[in-house]
């Protein structure tokens, strides 16, 4: 199954708020660590190597496009 690039989260505003709130009260270093751990946890959940490669490439390409 290829990387799902269509909307897939049921309540996007609620999810986004939860994501931002998760960093409340953390130092910058802690917040960065949280984000890093989240990447690893979700990557393991996805598991499928080809999908992970596609996601990594998308994040990198999108970053480079924005300078």
């Amino acid at each position, binding site marked *: 199954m290829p990387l799902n690039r269509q909307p897939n989260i049921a309540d996007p505003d609620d999810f986004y708020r939860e994501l931002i709130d998760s960093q409340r009260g953390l130092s910058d270093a802690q917040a960065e660590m949280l984000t890093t*751990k989240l990447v*690893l*946890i979700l990557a393991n959940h996805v598991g499928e190597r080809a999908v992970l490669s596609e996601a990594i490439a998308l994040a990198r390409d999108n970053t480079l496009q924005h300078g």
Partner: protein
Amino acid sequence: MSKSYSYPEFPYRQSAAQREGRLERHPLVVIGAGPIGLSIALDCAQRGIPVRLLDDNNTVSFGSRAVCYAKRPLEIWDRLGVAAPLVDKGVRWQVGKVFLEDEQVYQFDLLPESGHKMPAMINLQQYYVEQTLVDACEAHPKIDIGWKHKLVALSQQDDHARLTVETPDGRYHLLADWVIACDGANSDTRQMVGAQFTGQFFEDRFLIADVVLKAPPQPAHGGQRLGTEPERWFWFDPPFHRGQSVLLHKQCDDVWRIDFQLGRDADPEAEKRPERVIPRIQAMLGPDLPFELEWVSVYQFACRRIDNFRYGRVIFAGDSAHQVSPFGARGANTGIQDADNLAWKLKLVLDGSAPLALIDSYQEERAFAADDNLLNSTRATDFISPKSPVSLRYRNAVLELAATEAFARPLINSGRLSTPTPYLQSSLNTPDAEAFAGRMKPGTHCADAPVRHQDQPAWLLNVLNTLHGPAGGFTLLCFGDRPAVESVAEGPIVARVLSVGDDVQDAEGLLAQRYDAQPGTVYLIRPDQHVAARWRRFDAAAIRAALRRATAQH
């Protein structure tokens, strides 16, 4: 400075050729009497090649250096008849533990499958390995070691090399049909042929301290004491050495190897001084544990490979051809496998029984293995010594998660320990035409198995060896009814039948299991105990074709 070992001094002997001013021509000159040069000399000599082995020094390795030896190199040394004293002397281990600060986050077990003669791993100081190999080489009538013989120049003709060698009696020249350069990561020979040696350098410095302890160390703050079983302990960011990694290994004679990461800015000269080293060790072991400092070394490393393993008549093996980080014990272990791969090929080419292309299959197979080792070694180094703040954060995130989350543990890489790289893509292999399960694909080193031979318990790999004697040869490992012939020949290349059920008994059924064998199954096994081809029935024409292929006669 060694407390536990006294270094032998091997005698310099002036050669008759130098004394008499004769230009002698040798079939084979090996440069460098380290573990690889000595192993290759022994392998070639046992196959019948006279070997002139030159070393610029006259003793063994200074310091313990390469200390971990894996199962496959031990099997190769067993084929050469030198493994028993090494295994007896070495420290067997199989458990590794990884700590973050003072908390254990991961444990692995090399879990040696039962039914193998050799253990998964032993730790043994390199000087013991070299001394054992030197004794075997000195005792071999076809090996002539020149101690204090330094290669200073080399030029090449079509079918030989001309070497200029410096000894205490001055310089002289000799000729060699073939030269094998085993003169290490800083190989002079490599420079003499103009080879490129490129790859990745790592800026981190590391300190090795070998200490003699009469009791197992109890790391201060760590709270955990090593038990009676030797284990490999690896710390990330321990309280006694903040922000860096530490590796602990037990060697024989109560010597413990402690490897401290020092970072990029460390001053290598200052860090070697006892007044700097001793406080680091006391911080780790506690101020009261008595120890003696045996050997200290500060090193940096690179992961790099030679562009071509052969330049004319000069062939490179071991660290002269590929250099890896120490994490994973892949340096000496892969070098011994270079020797294993090259000796039988050189013998057949020197005899005129196989074309030069067989030597070039050494590059094909061992460069493939070297690249696999370099990949593993570079990955471990990137984990242990992250190069950017973001990669450091990923590394620490993995370690922090691993304490409670199983999913993160396989991502921890404190060095993946050396295992052989099968030559699955080798042009010497005959691809399977029939269905086989299991690991014994063409290009794979033969798995050992317990057997009975001449009414005695024995091991498959030993029986393969005794079938041929030290000169070695191809084997047809045949399951089921004994074939009508004793051997199959393709020109001068002969494969001898070893019948399972007749010559050897599959005592525990492990042989058939590991080789996915049924009655009629035939394996063609190379002189270096790798699978060349396999079939479900004995077919002499197919065997002859596979023999041609396995000796590069396409």
